[in-house]
Structure formats: C-alpha cells, structure tokens
C-alpha cells in the first residue's frame, strides 16, 4: 500500500447525496480477478453513454477535473455493497482522498486498506470546500494527514479527525496482516480457550 502523508491536488465537486458503490463501479466490472485497471470504469454509467462515448457534463470528463485527486461529495458516500472494487477504481483513476459529511462504514474502512484517506467534515466546511473545488484546476486543495488539516486554495484551513491506528498505517503504508500475525500467540491462546468454552464454534 502506498503511504499517504500530504497531498496537494485538484478536487472534483460531486454535490450529490448517497453516491453508492454501484455508481462508483457498476457490477459488470466486478468480474475481474485483479485489483488494478478499474480507473477507466470509475463512475462508468454516469461518465459514458451506452455506446461508450464520454458524457461531457460529468465532472471527471470536464477538462478542469480530468486529473482530480480529491473528491468532495454529499452525505453517505460509498453506501451499498462491500465491493473493494470501489476504492480500487478510485485509486486507479488517481483519487487519493474523498471528503464528505458522512461515509458508509464498509467503504470508509476499505479506503484505508488502499491508501485512500476518507475525511468527514461538517456540512458548513463541506460547503466551503465544495465552493473551492468548483473553482477548477487552478484551485488546488492541500490535505495534510500529519497535521490533520485540509487547506483550500485561498488558505482557509480546517482540522479533521482520524483514528490513530488507521492514521499510523496510512502514514507508513503498513500491511495490517503483518501487524496481526505478530499477535499470533494471542490468537493461539484465544483458540485454546474457546475450544473448551465454545467447542461447537
């Protein structure tokens, strides 16, 4: 997993609530056995017509936002299925940070496993960031995970919360499985204990 420390980039405004995982990556693209290559199908049904032509109005098709690295969105981003293809598609497109008023739990969690930082901000801050994002390619936002701040192109800075364990893993690009396997002895003793207390499990 790539580390995430600071990011200065273009933010795409998506002021829609309940952007679900079927929108982010429709099911026909889940038939892959790889993690990479999904960026071209990110938001596929919003981004392309049935014949595959780009829909010019869609934000990521607009010249200013084609190389966006941040998305600013409405409530409940990533609701729906557990498909990790959603963060894979975002990452493959180049998105490293999503800012919204709320996220669905599973999607939120999946982001951290892939080096993407999801940031929860209150509505009034999202409104400011959305307005900044609407200013296009010349307005670059800065996300600083170490300092836990988002700074607009005109220098307004807002703090955000992030779980300390997840922050540590993102900053260092750490593999959870490796960390857990260091606790193998604790897992062994748990299994030995439950072999008598819950032998049916």
């Amino acid at each position, binding site marked *: 997993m790539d580390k995430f420390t600071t990011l200065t980039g273009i933010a795409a405004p998506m*002021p*829609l*609530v*309940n952007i*679900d995982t*079927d*929108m982010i990556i*429709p*099911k*026909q693209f*889940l*038939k*892959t*056995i*790889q*993690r990479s290559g999904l960026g071209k199908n990110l938001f596929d*049904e919003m981004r392309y017509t*049935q014949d595959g032509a780009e829909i010019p109005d869609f934000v990521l098709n607009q010249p200013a936002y084609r190389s966006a690295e941040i998305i600013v969105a*409405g*409530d*409940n981003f990533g*609701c*729906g*299925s*557990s*498909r*990790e293809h959603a*963060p894979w598609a975002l990452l493959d497109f180049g998105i490293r940070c999503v800012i919204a008023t*709320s*996220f*669905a*739990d*599973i999607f939120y*969690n*999946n982001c951290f*496993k*892939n080096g993407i930082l999801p940031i929860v901000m209150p509505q009034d801050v999202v409104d400011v960031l959305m307005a900044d994002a609407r200013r296009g390619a010349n307005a670059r936002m800065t996300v600083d995970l170490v300092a836990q701040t988002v700074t607009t192109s005109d220098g307004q800075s807002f703090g955000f919360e992030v*779980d*300390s*364990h997840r922050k540590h893993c993102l900053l260092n690009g750490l593999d*959870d*499985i490796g*960390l*857990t*396997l260091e*606790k*193998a002895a*604790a*897992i062994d003793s*748990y*299994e030995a204990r*439950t072999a008598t207390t*819950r*032998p*049916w*499990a």
Partner: protein
Amino acid sequence: MTAPRTLYDKIWDDHVVHQAEDGTCLLYIDRHLVHEVTSPQAFEGLRMTGRTVRAPEKTIAVPDHNVPTTLDRANAATMTEDSRIQVDALDKNAKDFGINYYPVSDVRQGIVHIVGPEQGWTLPGMTVVCGDSHTATHGAFGSLAHGIGTSEVEHVLATQTLIQRKGKNMKVEITGSLRPGVTAKDITLSVIGETGTAGGTGYVIEYCGQAIRELSMEGRMTVCNMAIEGGARAGLIAPDEKTFAYCMGRPHAPKGAKWEAAVAYWKTLFSDDDAHWDKVVTLKGEDIAPVVTWGTSPEDVLPITGTVPAASDFTGGKVEAAQRSLDYMGLTPGMKLSDIKIDTVFIGSCTNGRIEDLRAAAAILKGKKKKDGIRAMVVPGSGLVRAQAEEEGLAQIFIDAGFEWRLAGCSMCLAMNPDQLTPGERCAATSNRNFEGRQGRGGRTHLMSPAMAAAAALTGHLTDVRELMGETV
C-alpha cells in the same frame, strides 16, 4: 456484578483476542463465508506472501453472484468468459486451500447467506463475516455478522481475526403485531424509511419487540439482511426457542452434549434490562403497511396507498437526489403508486429467496395467471429451497402462473449473471437495492415483499396485496 450489557456487547466481549491502548480490538471470527466475486484477489494475496488459510474448517465458499440460473447452466457456454474465470478461480482456491466448498453442481449450492444458515454453519453468538454487505442476514440468529472488503477477506483468511473498533448500540423495537398482508420485508423497509440510509451508520442494530419475536427465522433473516441498507453493518435479533429449533439437526450444528452446552450458552445471549442504548427507534407493528420504493435509494419508501412525491417535498441534498431519482425512474409527482405499470417481476435474492418467501408468493398466485406480457421469474435462494418448493407443490403454482422456475443464485438482484433488466424496463423486485443500474443499466427497480411482487405480476402494476386477499385497508 458486571454492568448491564447489550447482546452486541456480550458477543463482542466473547470475541476479543487483543485490545490495544487506543481501543482498537483484534476480534476472533468464527465463520468466514466466501463467494467468487470478492475473494480472488484475497487468495492471490495469500499466494504472493506464502501465507495459508489459518482455519479452513471455519471457512465456507460457494459461487453465487455470477452463476446462470437457467436449467442449462451445466453447459459452460451459458456463462461469459469473465464470469467463468471467477467461478473457476473459486473452484481452484477452495481446493488449493482446503476450505469447505459447495460447487455449482452441488444441490446445496445457493446464495451464500442462504446456504450458511441452511447448513448450520451460522449459529447464535458467533461472529460471521463475508466479503458481501448482506452478511448482516446472519444476525437473525443472534450472531454478530457483517460485510467486509477484500483486504479484510485476506486478513481473515490469514489470521481468522479482524481489526475492529466497537460500534454503537441502536435498538429498533417493533411493538405489537403486524396486520394481514404485512411482512418482514415491510418492517425492514419501513425502518429504513424512518431512519434513512445513513441512520444506522456507526451502529449495530438490535431488532426487538413483539412483531420481531412473532417472525419466523426466515422473516428475521429478511429484517437483518437489510440492516446495511439502513447504514448499519450488522443487525441482530436475540436467539430464542425458534432459533434453536431452526438450528437443531442441521449438518454443521452441534449434536449431543455439545448441543446442550451450546443451547445453555445461547440462552445467555440477550440484552440486559438496563443496558445502554445510544439510539432507540420504535415503530408500531399495527402502523406498518405493505410498502414499495419509488426512487433509487432504499430510503425512498412509501406505503402502497401513497403517491409519488415531488423533489420539493424534501430538504437539503435530498432535493437534487429526489429529482434525479424521479427522472431516472420516469415517474411524475402526484401519481398513485398503484398506477405504476411494471414489465418484470423478480422473486428471489438473499433478502427474499427462502422457502417462506416462495410460500407467500405462491399463496397469492395459486390458480391464477400473470398478466399478459409480463416477464416473471422465481429464483430460489438455494438448491435445497428449490427442492423443497417442488416437494410442496409451489414450483407448479409458479409455473402454472406463467413464471420461469429457475436454479439458485443471486441472479437479477445485482445482474452479474445473464439475468438483467434492459434500459427503461421496470421491475417489481423482492431484492434489496434499487440503485441506478443495479439490475441492469437503465433498469428501474421497485423493492417490495414477495406477496406484493406476486400481486404486481397478476395485475401488471404495483398493487396493494391486501386487495387480492380480501382484506380491508
């Protein structure tokens, strides 16, 4: 004397392997269910790092999302190449890593969330995970069950644990009894209508109250299945005598002295009287009507007696979302929901693909025919549900009514197999999501109960099933 605890607290406490100073826990996983779509990258990760599956005996795999449901599916040509690659990958991974497996050719194959309980893998008090958000289904047994992403699938395969922080406790109480024609699906959709799709975010829901106690295990699974559509990763129902009766004698349920010990433990699994709830929602069972969705979010739910809302009925970001939904669904504000004409009926899915669901639909359809021109299909949730429905004569009722009688799989719930809607095609569906494009690009989904879907098949439009039952509304 320990502090009063909720059911969720109790299951959580019994599964903590390690707790870090910041409160992050390593939680032991009793059952790991696996399907072909969200697992290939996880198994590949194990191979690349030389890791093995820590507890293959607690890992259960079944292909369900991609598999065709037509009777000729033994013919490999019925699957697209990319679907076949995923199913073949699961075949190989199950064999290579020695996990429990129900291949497509096995009569026990079906939707993972139907197979798990059916085979007795899911038991009260367990932690159950799967790379699928509808894992919440298993909460009906009083097990802590939730969906995970593929990275976590790999984590559970390698360590049989998950890194978790504890969620908050939410109680959803349904008091009193349901009225005739109202089902578990109407409960779960009505709760989402009340709380919104983000209302449960950060919570584990416990459903309780008389109306929940009165539900069968099948109905309870329907309720918990859609906890995720309300934003909660997990929904729970305390186990009781119905739960024990359902589990008893299933292939992987304990037997003899182990069974006795298990039941004694399961009887301790309930929320203490003075337990703390972070949020409480109460609905009266008598007030719940048969409902349908009109929009493209499961929270867009209304009683069938209602009318299509206008975007201006909403506030905030929902105004734009509602307008987008109305445009996508091709609906005009003010029209009666029961005037919405449909093209297709889909009965099945992990929400409503169990035997009781098929009985409820068949009771409405018995001796009748679907409206001319309607495409109608029933997809049983497992091969065993299909066999039981044939034995009970339900299959013949569906066939006589003009329905296609299919083999088991996820099918048109998410349309990863050939069962899809075409652009503009409008479907009365017993599944769980009405998102844009969910059942096929441009497809329009109205969610409802199996009885309501059957009623729509007979009339060709969304219909209050109570009218066909002779009930006064």
